[in-house]
């Protein structure tokens, strides 16, 4: 069963077109790794999928679980089973992390106790009563995003650079939890699907992605085995990786 289908998507901010004619098809249980240089449109794609109003869709549509969600509000998309881990979550004055977690737990059908259990697992007990994202370290920000996602327990999760700016210890903790979340390490039916944006690919040491895609200059230019793509990018950089992809397509 397909969980996400992006068809001929065009996205702009103001007058500037960022994505053009993007097509993506993700089946239930599949994990996609999304690569691309800075400013290529990776985060824009995730923001458009989740319905960030800053990003205007000027062409195409987004189907989630066979439902057209192109024009519905963010909260409705979330309630359909979508979750997003933001790269740069904003601070919200006066709102404590625990206040938001209560809503997340409610969404995921978890009890209050689960908040503390997961917070302990992510070493965030000391942040629960602090203003959300205010003064959090890089690692705390990532773990806080992950904690919220875990409590919401969505079927489809989009992770925007979960491995950027974190030390090795945090990376291992985050990586293992994301792997568990996708049930990748277990011999089980993979029911959860998602997209992971990564620059360095460190997160892929923990999570086995099924496919990799390269987004370049607002278009998806290559889809293939994620470890092959990553190898090419590491070896040749994006430009040469792109040339090689195009040659293979021809």
């Amino acid at each position, binding site marked *: 069963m397909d969980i996400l289908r992006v068809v001929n998507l065009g996205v702009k901010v103001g007058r500037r077109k960022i994505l053009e004619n993007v097509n993506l098809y993700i089946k239930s249980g599949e994990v996609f790794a999304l690569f691309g240089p800075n400013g290529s449109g990776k985060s824009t794609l995730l923001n458009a999928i*989740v319905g*960030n*109003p*800053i990003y205007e869709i000027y062409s195409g549509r987004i189907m989630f679980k066979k439902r057209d969600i192109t024009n519905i*509000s*963010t*909260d409705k998309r*979330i*309630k359909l089973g979508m*979750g*997003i881990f*933001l790269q740069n*979550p*904003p601070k*919200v*004055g*006066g*709102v*404590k992390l625990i*206040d*938001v977690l209560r*809503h*997340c737990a*409610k*969404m995921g059908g978890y009890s209050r106790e689960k908040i503390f259990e997961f917070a302990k697992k992510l070493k965030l007990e000391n942040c629960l009563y602090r*203003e959300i994202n205010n003064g959090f370290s890089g690692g705390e920000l990532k773990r806080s995003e992950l904690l*919220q996602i875990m409590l*919401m327990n969505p079927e489809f999760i989009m992770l925007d650079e979960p491995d950027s700016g974190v030390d090795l210890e945090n990376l291992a903790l985050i990586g293992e939890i994301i792997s568990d979340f996708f049930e990748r390490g277990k011999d089980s039916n993979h029911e959860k699907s998602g997209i992971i944006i990564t620059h360095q690919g460190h997160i892929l040491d923990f999570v086995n992605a099924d496919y990799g895609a390269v987004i370049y200059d607002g278009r998806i230019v290559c889809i293939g085995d994620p470890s092959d793509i990553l190898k090419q990018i590491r070896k040749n950089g994006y430009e040469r990786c792109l040339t090689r992809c195009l040659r293979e397509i021809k």
Partner: protein
Amino acid sequence: MSKGNKVENMDEFQFKEVGLDFSKKTSSGAFFQEDLTIKELVSFLDGIEIISIQEAIKRYDWVLEYLGKPFEANLGMKIKVNLDDLTGYFIRSLPNTRVDLPVQICFYLKNVRRQKTYNMVVVEEGSQLNIISGCLSHRNATGSHVGSTEYFIKRNAKLTFTMIHSWNQNVRAIPKSAALVEDNATFISNYIVINPASHIKANPMACLNSNARATFNSIIVGLKGSYIDLGVKVLLNGAGSCAEITSRAVSKGGNIIARGCIIGKAEKTRGHLDCKGLMLSNHGQIHAIPELEARNPHVELSHEAAIGKIADEEIFYLMTRGLSRDEATSIVVRGFMDVEIKGLPKVLRSAIKETLRLVEKSLF
């Protein structure tokens, strides 16, 4: 001093509207005035005295000498208090009495055109007193409430005074207050406006002696048609005294003026003013006027002021957690109003939390 377990004549009114609960379980005493008539005076504890101001003048010679003193100290000029028709309360905590349960006060405006009150609070040396004062009006009331309150907070004493206003749109309220905070004493003043479709002009003042501390927190909500002018003024008169003024103004069409003034007169005094405004509508206005005045080179005074609307990215972020736009706005506003008030007993903290819930309800 009457000592009943039940406060009579009060059940017909919606006291919960202003967070009041007169039961013995939740209060240490109560005062209730309807229009110009005192309907109830009761103290549940020996260390707390609650009588009318007229009775206090008869009982204690010194009360007459006290009248007007805090206003004089704050304004630097002689004040004459008119003794005719004085109505209001006199609350006194005896030396070294420490009570967490608040005295609950209510002024109710129903039929008169002008409800004028004069009140005095004396917190004797080493004692701690908490007071919640709710002021509300009948839905058909059309008058004005003019209240003057003077506080005497003696050496090493502490007073927490929480005033909650809930008026209808035809009422004008002009509450004035002045505090004399003696050496090492603490004054915490909280002012919350719930139903603000009215005209309010409030001027609380405090004059601080050596090493005294004062904290003023105000949460003001202005709906369409309301005009609220709040001006807090603190005079740091004694060495080592310090003050903090925090105001949170939310306008949903109302006009709000949030003034704050700290005057550093003595050595080693410190003061900070934090004035924030949130515009929830294209109408209305918030005017923040923070003022600092140093009359001594050895003072530390600072302020921060900011007015704006809720950032779109904050709303979007909360919506990615499954909250609707209204729920997200509501949680941000609640967070905006959630001023951290240090040194509050648990019972008072819950009362304020409940009041803020009502404020939020009035907005959405």
